[in-house]
């Protein structure tokens, strides 16, 4: 054990967190020492964010306890956490764009008298802080006028405006350029000198090796190990992060993958869309499951949105069955028999307040109506019933409100609504996110079944084992670019993670 028992500022022991049937954390532990940068390393979905949200008081743990500076610590909201001396800088921006930098940095803690805000003092205090941190912004600027990177720095300044014993930085460099990241690293250095403990979350390996003192690896919601930076290599860390037996989680292929000589359903060539992604090229054949792996911000979902006509490409071509097409709306994509199970089923997939039946029939409604637009309710009902049976959707009835079902069953409804359109190609963006293990396996079986029937599948996922376990080939993306298209013999977790983190071994 690299960390001795004494001189610990934050100690988490035996913590678990359950969301319904889903276990987000199990037997989690952590010891953080003052004046050190402690990196938490894990894949997306490994439980890092849940852990951080518990520390920030957003969630409460199901079991386990936290000691902060020797005192029991059980925050019920972020204000509690701040009062106890713990501050968190989330990766999602939480700034008000129509207010100034100063107003944002000192939000809810504005210097005031009798309810009137002292604007001069506000600006002065914020300016001092910004100067101390060495940020390249003026405190009187509107946040909305700043670049994303500058906003991220303001976000950090806001987090540091309270005197904290523990600072959590959740992927702080994800939208920073190298020189801006350098500013952040200097800030971190100064905080360390002051004895502040820093919990750092990042996917960038070089950055982690440069900044960290201690590194804790988590996987599947469990604590794996804590190592001193000087004792590990990047390769070891990646192996610790992804290593697991995956044979039993993914149903095997019954039908051989299509030959590489077969004509692709979809060919994408040099597709670019400004800063989101550039020069993306790949093709997918009938019956093939083409995996898409990349970390958050790699541009995978943006590519899918563009293919589905929700956004338009600035350059490049898309061909379906060999013929070049221009898809400018979902209506056109659906006409070309493309289906899209989006990443956020609650926002873009389902009408939560409506019945299972009307959600399932939603896309294929034309097939259930007569010439004059009257609905054929009987046909609609039979079709919905058949899908519920085929995908074994657990619902009390077809009239049950979709929002009342479990995550796995909701996801199956989204699948069902696309299956009714008999798609030639189906895009699945994070199809098993927030789905429990049992339903996951069923969804994998459905995907296999569809591929066996000749549907081309684009499987986007940030879960590496899922991508490797299911795909025939894997497109790896990093920062908007395709860094590799891996064939089965190259599909080891280590190799793919190397390409995804932009770290060439």
């Amino acid at each position, binding site marked *: 054990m690299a960390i001795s028992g004494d001189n610990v500022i934050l100690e988490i022991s035996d913590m678990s967190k359950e969301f319904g049937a889903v276990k987000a954390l199990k037997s989690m532990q952590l010891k953080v020492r003052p004046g050190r940068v402690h990196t938490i390393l894990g894949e997306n979905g490994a439980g890092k964010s849940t852990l951080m949200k518990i520390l920030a008081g957003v969630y409460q743990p199901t079991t386990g306890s936290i000691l902060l500076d020797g005192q029991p610590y059980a925050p019920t909201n972020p204000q509690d956490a701040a009062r106890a001396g713990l501050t968190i800088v989330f990766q999602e921006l939480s700034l008000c764009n129509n207010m100034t930098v100063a107003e944002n940095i000192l939000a809810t803690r504005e210097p005031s008298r009798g309810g009137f805000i002292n604007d001069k003092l506000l600006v002065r205090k914020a300016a001092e802080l910004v100067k101390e941190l060495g940020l390249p912004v003026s405190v009187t600027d509107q946040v909305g006028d700043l670049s994303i990177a500058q906003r991220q720095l303001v976000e950090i300044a806001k987090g540091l405006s309270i005197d904290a014993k523990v600072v959590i930085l959740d992927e702080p460099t994800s939208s920073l350029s190298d020189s801006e990241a350098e500013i952040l690293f200097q800030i971190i250095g100064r905080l360390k000198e002051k004895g502040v403990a820093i919990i750092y979350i990042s996917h960038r390996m070089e950055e982690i090796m440069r900044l960290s003192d201690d590194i804790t690896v988590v996987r599947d919601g469990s604590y794996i190990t804590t190592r001193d930076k000087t004792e590990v290599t990047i390769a070891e860390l990646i192996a610790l992060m992804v290593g697991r037996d995956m044979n039993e989680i993914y149903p095997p292929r019954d039908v051989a993958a299509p030959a590489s000589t077969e004509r692709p359903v979809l060919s994408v060539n040099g597709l670019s869309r400004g800063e989101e992604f550039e020069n993306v090229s790949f093709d997918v054949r009938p019956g093939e499951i083409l995996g898409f792996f990349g970390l958050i911000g790699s541009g995978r979902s943006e590519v899918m949105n563009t293919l589905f006509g929700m956004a338009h490409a600035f350059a490049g071509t898309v061909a379906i069955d060999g013929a070049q097409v221009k898809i400018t709306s979902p209506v056109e994509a*659906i006409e070309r028999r493309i289906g899209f199970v989006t990443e956020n089923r609650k*926002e873009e997939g*389902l009408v*939560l307040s*409506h019945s299972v039946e009307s959600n399932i029939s*939603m896309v294929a409604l034309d097939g259930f109506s007569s010439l004059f637009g009257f609905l054929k309710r009987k046909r609609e009902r039979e079709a919905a019933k058949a899908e519920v049976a085929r995908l074994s959707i657990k619902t009390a009835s077809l009239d049950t409100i979709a929002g009342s079902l479990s995550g796995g069953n909701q996801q199956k409804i989204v699948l069902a609504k696309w299956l009714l359109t008999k798609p030639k190609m189906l895009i699945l963006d994070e199809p098993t996110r927030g789905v429990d293990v049992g339903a996951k396996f069923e969804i994998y079986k459905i995907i296999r079944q569809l591929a066996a029937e000749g549907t081309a599948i684009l499987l986007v996922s940030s879960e590496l084992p899922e991508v490797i376990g299911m795909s025939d080939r894997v497109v790896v993306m990093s920062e908007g670019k395709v860094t590799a298209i891996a064939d089965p013999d190259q599909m080891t977790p280590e190799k793919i993670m190397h390409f995804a983190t932009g770290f060439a071994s």
Partner: protein
Amino acid sequence: MSDKSAASAAFKQVMKQYGGIFLSLIVLCVIFSVTNGRFMSVANFLNILQQVSVIAIAAFGMTWVILLGEIDLSIGSIIAVAGMVGAQCFAFGMSFVPALILTIAAGAVLGLANGVLTAKFLLPSFIVTVATMGIYRGMVSLPTNGAPAMIMEPSWTAIGTQSFIGIPIVIWVVAVLFLFNHILLSKTKFGRRAYLTGGNREAALYSGIKVDRLKIIIFMISGVMAAISGVLLSSRLFSAQTNAGMSYELDAIAAAVLGGTSLAGGVGTMIGTLIGALIIGVLNNGMNMLSVPYFYQLIVKGLVILVAVYLDVRSKRAKQ
């Protein structure tokens, strides 16, 4: 299934869905029957239906708009525009049918403008229709410089004053439009798409529903319904008044919301809206018969709306 059991099943369904609001309507009727002997009569009920017709029809259109999660505050002004268009058509010597078609087309065009500004220019419908409420209201006065215009065309005035098989024509119009809207909303692909889009616009968009087009058509429906309301109103008044239909949009919204239409979108029915409109009609009529002063009527109406909506919300929450 026999007619009788079908009817009782339908009644049960209505009670299940509209129990709270239906009960409010009955309670009001009982109160007014007890306090006034003349309230409970066929003649008076026909009277109530006639009085509420303008609001009810406008409320059918409003239900579509609210169902989408939007709002149309311009319908009161469209009601007035419709009357004036009709009056001008006759002033130019047109005959009844082309004048009626032109009047309804005017409503469609004004609704189209609301829809295009909302769907294509991405302005909030609240703002768009506050603006067009003023613009359309101003346009009413253009042909006459603010003076009312008489309508003496007998076919036009017959709508508001004559009967067919013993029932006022106005009530026939309400019945036909109710059926039209009810069937369009509950039995067709178009209606289903309106529900889905109101429930979750993003999901509708990703599912290939032409959300913008749908929105524009629905604002046009709202405009057309308001224009028909305007025809009824002007036919009863034998004239087009520049302040006709003033603040009717609020009564139409109240009727729709009383009937269970959710301002968040995705939920609502024409049956509910019809009951909502009847509650407003019964309240107005009952209090008029009791000679309640106008300002008290306003207060009571506001309170009844609050209580009825609260009861409805509470019963729906209890079911969940």
